[in-house]
């Protein structure tokens, strides 16, 4: 599949926004879906739908096989060692909540430290906050430097012998900083500290290999990877799958249930309570196929090229302030324009068909640190191209015109 013509694979681009072609620069929020994924959902519901893992009739068998085959596919895609390291969740948020809850229950006590960074999305802070308020744990923040990066030395500095877990983002959804996660994991391993990676922004834009990264937990949101809504993946190293207590309780995750006691299922099953998102899981395989057909490295370098082109344009505009200048930038570009509030920018850009996001992007702590209440964010997906960046940068000039600045 050629990236050049890739917009055609995404039905959403057939429509006009305010009479103009859609320039979708909100992929860090959620990506659009290729036709293969959408079609798989309908096709599955139309011809193969059944609840999985519970019945022995033909439809149930087919659905279960398809469903479990996706677990294998994900295992292979992220290079996990065991299929039971793949846990299906509602999203990255649920994945991180699961770890905070199950790990926290067993291993976090009063005074224990949880190390995060100032870059974290609320999803990778609020769940740990619960352990702070309920168990008296301490949250430490590795500081972001003036480039919007978190350096390995800063992480090193914050580790103490009370550090029980490190929870860090792979790529910042604001500064775009790509953190040196493999190195951080190495550092943590020396001290036997488990590491959770919030891979929400990492997984759609980079080659992720659990053996190379070496982390204990890696959380993914499928809807940002050209996949369906309502599905996430939590990679959990086998030793933790075996060791941690279950999360939500319900059907499918039990072994034996009596009036006075309950024993739980083993493997990933322990963490998958209730009816699973069968159609979502099945269609996510198509999203992975789509990515594989193009090649994640090709996607990443294409996105990078588009991003750099856009950055170059914006840098020439003296009224535009680009947030962060990290060593390696993921496909995110946050900015402000002098005397125009990001919210107003987003509205004016939208009038030109350009979809961006404005606000704190669920990163209030980082915005506090930056001393800005809100920023505007353009984020790139495989379907964006340089033309999009031209329209985007023209539209920014239009903002300045409307606001006469």
């Amino acid at each position, binding site marked *: 599949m050629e990236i050049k013509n890739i917009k055609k694979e995404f039905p959403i681009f057939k429509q006009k926004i305010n009479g103009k072609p859609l320039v979708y620069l909100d992929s860090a929020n959620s990506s659009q879906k290729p036709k293969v994924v959408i079609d798989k959902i309908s096709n599955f519901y139309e011809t193969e739908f059944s609840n999985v893992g519970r019945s022995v009739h033909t439809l149930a068998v087919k659905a279960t096989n398809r469903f479990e085959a996706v677990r294998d596919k994900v295992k292979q895609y992220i290079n996990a060692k065991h299929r039971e390291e793949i846990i299906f969740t509602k999203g990255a948020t649920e994945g991180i909540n699961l770890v905070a809850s199950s790990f926290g229950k067993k291993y976090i006590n009063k005074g224990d430290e949880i190390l995060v960074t100032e870059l974290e999305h609320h999803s990778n802070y609020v769940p740990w906050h619960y352990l702070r308020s309920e168990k008296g744990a301490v949250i430490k923040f590795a500081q972001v430097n003036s480039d919007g990066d978190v350096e390995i030395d800063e992480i090193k500095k914050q580790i103490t012998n009370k550090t029980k877990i490190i929870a860090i983002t792979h790529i910042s959804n604001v500064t775009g900083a790509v953190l040196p996660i493999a190195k951080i994991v190495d550092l943590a391993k020396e001290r036997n500290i488990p590491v959770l990676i919030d891979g929400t922004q990492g997984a759609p834009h980079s080659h992720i290999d659990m053996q190379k990264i070496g982390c204990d937990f890696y959380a993914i949101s499928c809807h940002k990877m050209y996949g369906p809504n309502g599905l996430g993946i939590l990679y959990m190293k086998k030793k933790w799958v075996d060791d941690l207590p279950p999360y939500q309780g319900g059907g499918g995750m039990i072994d034996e249930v009596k009036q006075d006691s309950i024993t739980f299922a083993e493997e990933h099953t322990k963490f998958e309570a209730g009816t699973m998102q069968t159609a979502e899981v099945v269609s996510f395989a198509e999203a992975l196929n789509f990515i594989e057909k193009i090649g994640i490295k090709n996607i990443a370098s294409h996105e990078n090229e588009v991003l750099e082109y856009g950055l170059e344009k914006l840098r020439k505009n003296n009224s535009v302030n680009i947030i962060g200048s990290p060593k390696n930038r993921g496909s995110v570009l946050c900015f402000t324009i002098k005397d125009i509030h990001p919210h107003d920018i987003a509205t004016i850009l939208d009038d030109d068909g350009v979809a961006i996001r404005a606000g704190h992007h669920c990163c209030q702590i980082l915005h506090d640190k930056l001393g800005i209440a809100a920023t505007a964010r353009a984020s790139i997906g495989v379907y964006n191209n340089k033309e999009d960046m031209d329209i985007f940068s023209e539209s920014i000039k239009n903002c300045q015109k*409307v*606001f006469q600045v």
Partner: protein
Amino acid sequence: MELKELYQEIILDHGKNPRNKGKCEGFTNDAKAHNTLCGDKVHIYLKLNKDKKIEDLSFEGEGCAISLASASILTETVKGKDLSFITRVSDDFINMIKNKKKITINSLTPDQMTTITSLSGVQEFPMRVKCATMAWHTLMSAIETK
């Protein structure tokens, strides 16, 4: 073109040079609000006198042009007015933004009328409704506190 309706001269002016900004002296009531979606904040201070008139008011806030203009216009509109006027104008304003209704109160000066209706373009931008109404809701909360 709708965008021009939204960002009218009056709004840009109020957004850039908001009136009555700060903390007014001797305020008796105050309330604040926060739009978690975009980070807009507003804090309204007011001095109610014995006759239930707003003798003075002011606001602090951060936010987009719409939210700042709305707060600024609010302070100009209700300063020196009594509670029954304020309730009516506030209802009218919210109704205009949310339900595309006309302003019905007839004790506004033509100038005030022009100013307040300059915000009516927000009707067409549903995600911006909260930007325009937040200050007005906060005013009512401030009045209810003591």
